[in-house]
């Protein structure tokens, strides 16, 4: 038991991301309502973003904006990589956030289209209607 405590403490961000991701995944598979599934999908995607942002974190680092930049090109030599948080995961996650909102838009458009035809958002009721027709 002793050796698990540091493991829990040093990586707690990772445990939370796994929890959230599994909540989202579970909702996408098990929920019956289409909008609930989409909520689950967004939670799922945000969890991955949390994972990436956690990769970028760095003890002793500040936000990745160079503070005393005197302008164009001078004095850049003294910038130390250890002083700033890793910016690359942030860049990647900006992309992922935008992708997730784009997916959300398309998913909701499809939901509205389905509702137009079936007048319900419950998957089992839609399947029932399809079986009858």
């Amino acid at each position, binding site marked *: 038991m002793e050796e698990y405590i540091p493991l829990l403490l040093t990586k707690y961000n990772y445990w939370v991301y796994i929890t959230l991701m599994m909540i989202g995944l579970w909702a996408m598979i098990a929920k019956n309502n289409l909008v609930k599934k989409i909520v689950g999908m967004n939670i*799922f995607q945000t969890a991955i973003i949390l994972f990436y942002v956690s990769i970028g974190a760095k003890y002793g680092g500040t936000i990745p904006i160079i503070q005393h930049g005197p302008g164009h090109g001078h004095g850049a030599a003294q910038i130390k990589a250890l002083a700033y948080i890793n910016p690359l995961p942030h860049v990647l996650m900006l992309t992922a956030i935008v992708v997730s909102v784009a997916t959300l838009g398309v*998913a909701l*458009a*499809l939901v509205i289209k389905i509702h137009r035809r079936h007048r319900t958002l419950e998957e089992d009721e839609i399947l029932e209607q399809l079986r009858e027709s």
Partner: protein
Amino acid sequence: MSEQYPALIVITPLLAALLVSAAGWLRPRLCFPLALAGLGAAAAAATGLLVQVLATGPVTYRLGGWEPPWGIAYYVDNLNAVVAALVAWVALFNLVASYRAVMTDYPEKIGPYYTLYVLAVTGMLGMVVTGDAFNLYVLLEITSLTGYALIGLGGGRAPLASLNYLFLGTIGASFYLLGVGYLYIVTGSLNMADLAKLLTPLYGSLALLAAFAITLVGLWMKMAFFPLHAWLPNAYGFAPAPTASLLAPLMTKVMVYVMIRIMISVFTVEFVLQEVLVGQLVVWLAVAAMVAGALFALGQRDLKRMLAYIVVAEVGYMVGGAWLGNRLGMTGAVLHLINDAVMTFCVFLAAGCIYQKTRGTSFEDLRGLFKKMPWTMAALAAGAMAIIGVPPTGGFFSKWYLIRGGLEAGHWGFVGALLFSSLINVVLFFRVFEIAFFEPSGGDDSHGGHGGHEEHGGAVALAEAPLSMLLPLMAAALGLIALGLATGPLVQKLILPIIPAGLG
């Protein structure tokens, strides 16, 4: 100019898509010519790149001028180049064929339809040429989003099928993203070539194995590999015909390409063969895919849905071949990737032609079609022969390589399943042709409700699909035979140089 080919492959269709979109708001008649010009330029650039790669070896292109691990780079070898050319040409032919169908079905939405069409092709071409793991994700999402919209446009059950595809597709893409994140956390890099170097000392790490597993599961979801195939039959079966004949041949093949790329260029074959102990299991999954795809296809009473299940089986061929773990299997997988794109295109386009005339593709609609649409049915027969694997067509040769690979690996299940599914394909297509050849043509009134403007006329009157659909269809059918005849040089010049030396 020639050193800019890799960039042009992606930029020309992207710019064309934007122009098409603008034209859709202002001058809808310009949409089709603009899309044609964009994809034509992309196809020309892809061909040029293929010639260049064959002449001078792999090409690297730095986007933004930054050197690889920091910037994004393209890395194009034979495999990328040939798949890119394939994607560009098939998309171009399908674009020509789609013109009439889109004009009849969605006259008000030509602009957005072609915008998304061209964007989908852009995404696929980008995925094929890119050498950056994260860039691949972005392009994958473009292709997927366009795919969801193009499928959801169809009537009836299409939106629901598309939404299911969206859910599974998002899970798949997110898994891929997560796998890339795992690779990033253990190496700190995103460039594929750089990753391959950095991963070698890490073999045996649990995180690496998990990264490999998650990435692969994500890709399998996207390519509809057997237990994860649930979205495909509905999505492609209910999609509008021009969409189905774009996505069914290309999307799954591009994903198979990505899987092979990840297997041989990011992780090496040594890793795949030695560290991953489930290789056999994957081949058995492929066996299940072939058998299940064939059996499900038997149960269908609709041509497009039947073809969709055949696609599921075909994915099993390629994944199984790639995982057999020997040169012949990998060669067969790559060769089959090329052939399968063309033959799936051929049969789906034939189904599209039939839909254009009869407004349905269920087996009842096929009655008497040999008399009414002889050219279309001849092309369908050519596609069917390729799928079954009859000698002059390419399908025979790629299956031949796959079977030899299976024999060399001693994997009798794979060989048996391949023969079994070919046999089922014979039954499937024979059934289709029996209905189309012997049964008399159905009455006009049964489908009058869908598209009243089509007059069926007498039972024997020729009612062939428009020429703009027939010519691409003929090209595809001839292409199948050409590919079969060109198998020798194709394997020697294109495929063998890229098979990694580590394969036994």
